[in-house]
């Protein structure tokens, strides 16, 4: 079980770093899909799988909304505008690595705050929070910001699942994920819509 959890955290880290670096939106949404599977595996440590699966369903729905929107944008054949140069790739990779090392060193302290959490859950949650914030700090494009926000919320959800298991909270967070994706879809499409006033 512990090995599986550690594997989940590793895949989670790789997915989040991958999202940060790839410029093809198909890869981006694909990695996000994989990231939600890892979120499910970490949340299911604290919750029964049948409730934890809500996170996966909501996350996949959010990803599907973003994917379908991007697929229908007239210019979507082009990749995101973030042309990454070699120094850019190196910088983002290095920043992600720094966050990974910092979070890893913070886990023993963080475990005192999240009493019911395993070290893998804490590591996974904090990694997603950190890498999501990095994504938000470095991006100006709508799609990247929306994915950054979804990543931060996923990290929070892993940690919060160890603290509270309220049905209403779970439902509202799931709706929030899907809502953010819909708002992202609207923002991606808004410049193509007819002006009202």
């Amino acid at each position, binding site marked *: 079980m512990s090995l599986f959890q550690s594997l989940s955290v590793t895949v989670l880290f790789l997915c989040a770093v991958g999202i940060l670096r790839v410029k093809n939106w198909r890869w981006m949404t694909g990695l996000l899909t994989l990231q939600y599977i890892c979120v499910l595996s970490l949340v299911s440590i604290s919750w029964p799988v049948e409730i934890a699966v809500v996170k996966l369903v909501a996350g996949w729905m959010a990803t599907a909304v973003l994917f379908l929107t991007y697929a229908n944008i007239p210019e979507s054949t082009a990749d995101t505008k973030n042309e990454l140069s070699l120094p850019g790739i190196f910088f983002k990779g290095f920043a992600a690595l720094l966050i990974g090392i910092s979070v890893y060193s913070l886990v023993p302290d963080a475990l005192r*705050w999240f009493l019911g959490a395993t070290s893998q859950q804490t590591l996974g949650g904090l990694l997603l929070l950190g890498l999501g914030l990095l994504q*938000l700090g470095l991006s*100006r494009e*709508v799609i990247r*910001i929306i994915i*950054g*926000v979804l990543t*931060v*919320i996923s990290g*929070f959800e892993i*940690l*919060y699942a160890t*603290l*509270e298991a309220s*049905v*209403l*909270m779970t*439902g*509202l*967070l799931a*709706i*929030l994920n899907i*809502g*953010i994706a819909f*708002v992202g879809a*609207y*923002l991606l499409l*808004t*410049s193509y*819509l*007819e*002006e*009202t*006033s």
Partner: protein
Amino acid sequence: MNTPLLWILIPLFISGFFLFIMNHQRILKWTGTIISLNLAALAAFLPINKVFNYLFWELKVSDEMLIFGRRFVLSEADRPIVVLLFLLCTFWFFILDPKTVPIQVIPLGLAGTVLILTAYAVEPIFYGALFFAFLALIFVVLLSPPGQVPTQGVLRFLIFQILGMLFILFAAWLASWIDINTGDQLLLVRSLVILALGFSFLLAIFPFISWIPMITEKNHPFLTGFVLNIYLLGVFIFGLRFITEAGWFGKNINIQQPMQIAGAMMIGFGGSLALVSKHLGRMMAAVIISEIGRSLLAISLFSLGFPLFFALFVVQALALGVWSLSLSHLRQVMSSFSYDSAAGAARQWPIISSGILVGYFTLAGLPLLAGFPLYWALGSNLRSYPLWINAMYILGALELIIGGVRILAALTRNSGEERVLIIGNPFYRSLILAVNVFLVLLGLFPQIVMRAAQSITKIFLGS
């Protein structure tokens, strides 16, 4: 029948219905105004938890509703908040010109107001943070009308509101431990720091201030004015509920001091922004930032400052309303709101420009206008505070007035075009004049708004 159904679910359903009639702009405007006014009137006069007769029926409206085991309560004590929110909505809907303002402000604005009430009504109160995240989503859509590229300010607004929500939820969870381990000062301090961080994100307190000038510069002035007025009021009343309801607050820890510091800092930033800005939109950000500071200082006075806080928001709505309405008309003939583009506007469009000047100077605190007596009263109550806070308060007000003089200079500058031109419908020009006169009258008779604010406070605090 219950109050959350009346003031949350039914208006939410109505706002959903409004989305389907967005092509009928005038009908939507007047329907939205009348419905908001009716909801406010209902909130003012409907007996709650008492049996009353209506036509052939005997009715009783209870004050709570249960959803998934969580209570949503809008009781007798919450009546003034409901009235205030729906009246503000009515005012904004009434003054909006469908020809110059995207009409989605009616359905999305009503839905946003309802979400503020939901956040305010839910128990335990920390669940409200989630509803503020939904509210942020709605206002992001509102601030990005169809046909326009979303601005960076809007995206930053979204990011900060989501982060604020996460911090508040986490702080609330930490706080729940304090009940069990009473007296754990470290835990209390930790939860308060995280909570303060959450509210700093929500209220754009330094250093999370940047989205306000970004939005006011690039987004539609009317939408910006509406969102800033309603959203900030919502966050403040949500915060007030936290302060008044959470028993573990204020007992062992002094929360007055951080509020004083944050308030003084915001006034300082607002004033500085007013001094250096050369853009009418950014000047709106300057006064809004100062207003956040003043509201924080008013709340830091607790029961003494609550009437001032409510009065500040009423005056802010009127001033910001007339300013936004004027700017949205000016937007039809100007490509930008920079001082160079707006040069000489007062010579060509005197009535529209008067709305900008009176709205700005009211919020800057110019004597004889509606803001001045309130700022004077607030300043007088700050005498027990440290000298630097008082100095910052006066300096901030002076900087705002100097900024206003620069607007006046820009608008009256001779641009070579002397013809008086007419833009906008006569109804809206008369409305600008009427609100201007009303703001002057409120400056001469401040007791009108203060009495109303005192009544709101009295019921709000349940005394």
